C-alpha cells in the first residue's frame, strides 16, 4: 500500500492531496510546517492581531476529490450522433441529440479539419471561441494561457469579456476616481490594519464577503471580520437578503427596493449637506464638481430635493432610518464596503448601476476617503503582504504562456475583428451588432470609448465556435438566447472542451475531455490574479506559492487543455510553434525563473517542498489605501499599474483632473449628452424595476447574487456532497433543486408552502426551484443565487423550455446597464413565481 502526499492549489485555496494506491483519498488544506509561517502582527490600541497559522479554504474545495472522480466528468471524446462533418450537420438538433464515443484521433481530425476548412473558405476570422470567467488554478493551464496561445496562433475573432462582476464600478466609478487599472475597484493595501486601528463602523452595501470571499482567497477573511466585531465596530447591512455576513456579524439590516440604492445614497448626501456633517476641506482640496452636485441633491436644478422623505418613498426604507444611518456614518469613522473587492456588489449589475457605484465613491469622498479608518474596503484583501517579491499572477501578461516574456516566441492574432460576450448570440443570429469598450478596459479610460461593429469592415461572420467551459447558461443574462444561437445553422461547427458536463456542453458537435489541475503539473500563487487585480493575494493571511504537482494520471481519456491544443497544433503542422518547445513542467519552471522567488528558494528546493511562503519583513511598513491621497502626498502604495505612481503626477488619482470628480471630466468630454450615465451621477428610475409597467405582470424582483457554496459554476452539480447543504441545493423527490428564498407574505399570497416546487417565470424564461420560506428576504423580492452549473431543460433543444437545474440567468434581461455602458444588468429583473404542479 503506497501513500503519498502532493501539493496543489485550487481556485479557492492550496491543498495537500493524499494519493493511496493511485487514488486520491484526501484533499485537505495545504500542510504547512509551523516554522514556515511568518505571521504578521497588527497592533491596534491594546490589542494585537496575528495572522492565523492555518489555511482557510472555501467550503467546496473540501469536495475536490469528489468532483475529480464525479460521474459528471467528460470521460471520452464524443461526437453528436447526427453531426457528420462530411454530410448533414443538423445544427437544429444541438441540445437534444445523443452522443457517441469517438477516439482522440478521430476527434482531432474532425476539429483540425474543420478549422482548416472554415478558415480556408471564410477567412481566419470565421473561427471564434471563448473560455468561461474562471478555470482551474495554475498559471500554465489557466484559460488565458493555452487557449489564447493556440487561437492567437491560428488567428480568430477574439471575444471581449464584459466586466461582469464589476459593471457599475467599471463603467461608472472609474470616471469618478480612476482605478481603471483595477476595473473600478480601489487599491486594497493595508486596509485591514487601518480598519483594526481606526474604524468605528462598516456599511456593507450590497456585499456578503463571507460568501463572495476575496474571490479566490477562501474563508481567510472570516476571522478578520470576527476581530472587528469583537472590537465593537458597528455594522450595517444594506441588502434585501439577511446575508451570511449579516448573520455572523449582527447589526442594522436595511432593505431598499432593488434599483433604488442610488436614491438612498442621494438622501444620505442630502442629510450631510443640510446638517453640515461632511468633510468640507477634503471636498475643497481633493475633489472637483461638488457645487453642481450639491445643487442637484438640494433640488435646486430639478426641483426635487433628494430628501430622506423622497428616498423613503422610492426605497421603502423609513425616513428615520435614512437619517440615522447618515448621521452615524458622518459621526463615526466609517468604511464603505460596496462589494467583495471594495466594489463589486450586485447593486452595480443593475439598470444604471454606474450611478450607484459612483455614489459609493462620492459618499466616501464626502467623509474624507483615505482618512484613517475611512476607506472603501470589501473586508477581504488588504492584509499585510510582502509585495516586494514578485510572482506573476494568472492574468499578468507575464503569467500567461500566450503573452509572457518567459516564452521564446509569442504568436500574434492577426485578426482585428472582435465580438463582445454579452452580445455574442445576437451577433451570430442577427448581425450587425455594435458596442463601446474593449471589454475589460484596464489600460486606460479611453478604452471604454472604442466603438466596435461586428462584422468589422473587411471581415466576415463567424462560422465555428470553440467553447472552453460551459457556464454561460447559468451566469450570463437572458441566457435562452445562447440556446437559440447554438441551435442555429449560422454556426457550422461547435466544439466544447471541459472537465465536466455543464449547461452548454451538450450543444456541441464535438466534446473534448479535459483534465483537472490535480492531473497535470503547474505552478500558482494562492489568490493571485494579477492583471487588473494586482496583489489580490493580500486576501490571504499568509501569502504562498504552490508547486502544483500532478497527483494522478488524467482520468479516463481526458487530457490537459495544453495537451489537447498541442495535439491540435500538431495536426495543423504547428506543434513547435505552439509549444515553444516546452512541456507543462517546462512552462512552470519558466514562470518560476522569471519571478523573484529564485532569490529566496531554488527550484529544486521548491520542487521538494512543494510551496514557498512569502516572508513578511520585520520592518514591514503599512501604506494604507488612499492615505497618500487624503494627505495630498505621492502615492506610496505598491499599486504597480497605477500609471501616475512614481511620476510627477504621483499625487493624482486616475481621473483627468487627478481628483475625485463629482462631475466627471471624462464623461463630459466623451458623452456630454448621455442622460443615462450623465457627467454628474443621478438617480434614474430603473428600466425594469418596481415602477416599470412590467411590474404589473411580474411584481417580484429577483435578487441573484454570487453563490456561497459553489464558485462560479465550479463544484456545483459535480460535487454531490454540496447537494446536502440546504443553503446550496434542496433534494426533493430524488432531484437536487436550486433553493428559492421567499418571504412568508409572498408565499402565503401565492399558496406556496416551504419545500414546494415552484416556477419562477417571466417573458424570457422559466426556472424551477424549491421554495424556502424565510424571514431573511424582504417582501417583494425573491432570492436565488446565480451560477447554477446545471442546465436541465424539460424540453432539450427548445429555447423557451422550463429549466429545472436552477439557471436563474434565463430570466434576466439582455438590456445593458445603459446605452453607452455595455454592462450586464441581471439584478434588474422582474418575475412572478407560482407553485409548480408539473
Amino acid at each position, binding site marked *: 500500500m503506497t501513500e503519498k502526499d502532493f501539493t496543489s492549489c485550487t481556485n479557492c485555496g492550496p491543498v495537500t492531496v493524499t494519493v493511496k494506491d493511485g487514488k486520491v483519498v484526501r484533499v485537505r488544506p495545504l500542510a504547512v510546517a509551523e516554522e514556515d509561517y511568518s505571521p504578521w502582527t497588527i497592533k491596534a490600541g491594546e490589542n494585537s492581531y496575528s495572522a492565523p497559522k492555518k489555511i482557510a*479554504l472555501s467550503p467546496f474545495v473540501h469536495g475536490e476529490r469528489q468532483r475529480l472522480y464525479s460521474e459528471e466528468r467528460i470521460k471520452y471524446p464524443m461526437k453528436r450522433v447526427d453531426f457528420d462533418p462530411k454530410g448533414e450537420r443538423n445544427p437544429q438538433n444541438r441540445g437534444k441529440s445523443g452522443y457517441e464515443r469517438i477516439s482522440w484521433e478521430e476527434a482531432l481530425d474532425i476539429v483540425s479539419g474543420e478549422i482548416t476548412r472554415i478558415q480556408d473558405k471564410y477567412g481566419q476570422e470565421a473561427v471564434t471561441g471563448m473560455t468561461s470567467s474562471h478555470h482551474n488554478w495554475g498559471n500554465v493551464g489557466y484559460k488565458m494561457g493555452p487557449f489564447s496561445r493556440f487561437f492567437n496562433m491560428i488567428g480568430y475573432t477574439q471575444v471581449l469579456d464584459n466586466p461582469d462582476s464589476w459593471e457599475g464600478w467599471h463603467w461608472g466609478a472609474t470616471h469618478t476616481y480612476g482605478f481603471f487599472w483595477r476595473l473600478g475597484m480601489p487599491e486594497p493595501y493595508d486596509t485591514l490594519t487601518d480598519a483594526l486601528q481606526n474604524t468605528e463602523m462598516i456599511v456593507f452595501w450590497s456585499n456578503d464577503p463571507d460568501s463572495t470571499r476575496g474571490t479566490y482567497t477562501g474563508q481567510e477573511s472570516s476571522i478578520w471580520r470576527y476581530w472587528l466585531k469583537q472590537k465593537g465596530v458597528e455594522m450595517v447591512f444594506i441588502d434585501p437578503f439577511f446575508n451570511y455576513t449579516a448573520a455572523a456579524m449582527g447589526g442594522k439590516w436595511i432593505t431598499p427596493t432593488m434599483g433604488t440604492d442610488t436614491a438612498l445614497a442621494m438622501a444620505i448626501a442630502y442629510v450631510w449637506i443640510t446638517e453640515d456633517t461632511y468633510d468640507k476641506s477634503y471636498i475643497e482640496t481633493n475633489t472637483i464638481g461638488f457645487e453642481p452636485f450639491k445643487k442637484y441633491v438640494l433640488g435646486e436644478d430639478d426641483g426635487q430635493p433628494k430628501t430622506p422623505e423622497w428616498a423613503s418613498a422610492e426605497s421603502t426604507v423609513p425616513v428615520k432610518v435614512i437619517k440615522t444611518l447618515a448621521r452615524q456614518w458622518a459621526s463615526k469613522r466609517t468604511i464603505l464596503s460596496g462589494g467583495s473587492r471594495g466594489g463589486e456588489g450586485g447593486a452595480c449589475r443593475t439598470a444604471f448601476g454606474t450611478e450607484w457605484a459612483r455614489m459609493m465613491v462620492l459618499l466616501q469622498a464626502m467623509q474624507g476617503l483615505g482618512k484613517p479608518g475611512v476607506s472603501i474596503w470589501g473586508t477581504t484583501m488588504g492584509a499585510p503582504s510582502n509585495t516586494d517579491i514578485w510572482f506573476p499572477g494568472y492574468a499578468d501578461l507575464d503569467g500567461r504562456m500566450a503573452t509572457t516574456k518567459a516564452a521564446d516566441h509569442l504568436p500574434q492574432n492577426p485578426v482585428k475583428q472582435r465580438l463582445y460576450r454579452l452580445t455574442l448570440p445576437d451577433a451570430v443570429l442577427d448581425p450587425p451588432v455594435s458596442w463601446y469598450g474593449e471589454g475589460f478596459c484596464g489600460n486606460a479610460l479611453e478604452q471604454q470609448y472604442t466603438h466596435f461593429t461586428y462584422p468589422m469592415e473587411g471581415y466576415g461572420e463567424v462560422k465555428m465556435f470553440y467553447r472552453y467551459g460551459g457556464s454561460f447558461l447559468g451566469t450570463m443574462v437572458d441566457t435562452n438566447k445562447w440556446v437559440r444561437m447554438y441551435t442555429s445553422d449560422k454556426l457550422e461547427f461547435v466544439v466544447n472542451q471541459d472537465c465536466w458536463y455543464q449547461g452548454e456542453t451538450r450543444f456541441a458537435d464535438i466534446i473534448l475531455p479535459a483534465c483537472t489541475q490535480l492531473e497535470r503539473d503547474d505552478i500558482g500563487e494562492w489568490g493571485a490574479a494579477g492583471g487588473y487585480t494586482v496583489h489580490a493575494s493580500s486576501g490571504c493571511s499568509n501569502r504562498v506559492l504552490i508547486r502544483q504537482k500532478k497527483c494522478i494520471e488524467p482520468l479516463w481519456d481526458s487530457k490537459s487543455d495544453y495537451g489537447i491544443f498541442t495535439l491540435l497544433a500538431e495536426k495543423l503542422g504547428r506543434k513547435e510553434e505552439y509549444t515553444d518547445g516546452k512541456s507543462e513542467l517546462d512552462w512552470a519552471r519558466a514562470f518560476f525563473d522569471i519571478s523573484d522567488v529564485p532569490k529566496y528558494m531554488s527550484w529544486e528546493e521548491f520542487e521538494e517542498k512543494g510551496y514557498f511562503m512569502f516572508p513578511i519583513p520585520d520592518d514591514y511598513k503599512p501604506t494604507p489605501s488612499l492615505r497618500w491621497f487624503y494627505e495630498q502626498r505621492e502615492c506610496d502604495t505598491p499599486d504597480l499599474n497605477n500609471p501616475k505612481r512614481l511620476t510627477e503626477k504621483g499625487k493624482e488619482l486616475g481621473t483627468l483632473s487627478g481628483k475625485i470628480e463629482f462631475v466627471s471630466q471624462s464623461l463630459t468630454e466623451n458623452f456630454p449628452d448621455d442622460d443615462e450615465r450623465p457627467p454628474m451621477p443621478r438617480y434614474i428610475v430603473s428600466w425594469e424595476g418596481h415602477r416599470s409597467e412590467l411590474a404589473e405582470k411580474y411584481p417580484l424582483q429577483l435578487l441573484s447574487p454570487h453563490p456561497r457554496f459553489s464558485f462560479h459554476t465550479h463544484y456545483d452539480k459535480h460535487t454531490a456532497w454540496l447537494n446536502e447543504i440546504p443553503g446550496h441545493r434542496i433534494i426533493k423527490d430524488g432531484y437536487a433543486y436550486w433553493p428559492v428564498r421567499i418571504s412568508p407574505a409572498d408565499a402565503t399570497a401565492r399558496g406556496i408552502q416551504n419545500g414546494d416546487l415552484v416556477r419562477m417565470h417571466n417573458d424570457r424564461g422559466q426556472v424551477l426551484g424549491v421554495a424556502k420560506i424565510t424571514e431573511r428576504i424582504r417582501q417583494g423580492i425573491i432570492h436565488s443565487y446565480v451560477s447554477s452549473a446545471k442546465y436541465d431543460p424539460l424540453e432539450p433543444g427548445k429555447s423557451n423550455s422550463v429549466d429545472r437545474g436552477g439557471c436563474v440567468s434565463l430570466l434576466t434581461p439582455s438590456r445593458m446597464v445603459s446605452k453607452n455602458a455595455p454592462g450586464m444588468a441581471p439584478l434588474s429583473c422582474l418575475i412572478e413565481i407560482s407553485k409548480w404542479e408539473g
Partner: protein
Amino acid sequence: MTTYGMLIDVDRCTGCYNCLLSCKDEFCGNDYENYSAAQPEFGQFWMNIKEVERGTYPKLKVDYIPIPCMQCQNAPCIKAAVNGAVYKRDDGIVMIDPIKAKGQREIAMACPYRVIYWNAELDVPQKCTFCAHGLDSGWKAPRCVEACPTDAIVFGDLDDSGSAISKLKAAGNYKRLHPEFALNSNVLYKDLPKRLIAGEVVLSDKKDECAQDVNITLKQDGNVISTTMTNVYGDFEFDGLDQDAAYAVTIEMDGYVAVHETIRTKIDVNLGEIELAPDN
C-alpha cells in the same frame, strides 16, 4: 491521563460548512481499519450543522451550530451495545467497532443527540470519531478543527490544565448541549441560541426620528432581570432568555406614557414597532 474534548463557540461560526465538508472528505469512501468503516457518499453527517433562524423580519438572528459526536462520559451507545461493540478509549473518545457493531441497530437508536447514523449497506452504526485514526498518527486535531476559519471549534486535552482548551474552558461560559440528558459530554458550547425578545420603539410625536435611549426593563416573576436602552435606530433586544417562559417588558421614557407588554417565549418574540405617546 488525556481526555480529548471540544469547545464550540457558536458566535464565531459563520456557517461556512468547512467542518461538515472536510469530514466528508476524510471519511466518505475511506475505511480506517480498526477505527471506522467508510462513511457512505450521502446521508450521514458525522459533523453536522444545525441552522437556527430566530425572530421575524427585520429583527433576525441566525446561528449555525456544528454538531459532532458529543463524546459522552456516560455514553448511552456504550450501554446499548453488546459484546463491547462501543467502547471508550483511554483518551475519552467513544468508538464504535465497525466489525463488532454489525447489525446492532440499537446503538444508533440509543443516541438522544442523534449523531449516530445507520449504514444500511454495511449494516453498521457510524459516527464521528474525533478523527482518532489521525490523532494516533500524529495529527494535532481532527479535520473539522483544521478546516475552521475562525477557530470556532477548539480541540485538546481537557485534563491538561495548561492546554489552550482548558484555559478557554476556565475563562468561558461553556455549556453542554441538552444538559438535561445528563450524559456528561466532552463537547461543550458557548453562546447557544436561546430565546429572543426584540422590538423597535417609535415616539408618536417624532415619527421621523429614531427613538434612541428609551428605557426598556425586562422582568421575570416580578423581578427585574435586565435593563437596556434603545440604540440609535430605536431598536432593543434581550437575548439568551428561557424557552417558554413568562416575561414582562416595560418601555418608558420621560414625558411619554409607558407601555407594558407581557410575553410568553414559546417562540422568539419580535414585538414590532411599539409606539409611545406623549403624556399630556
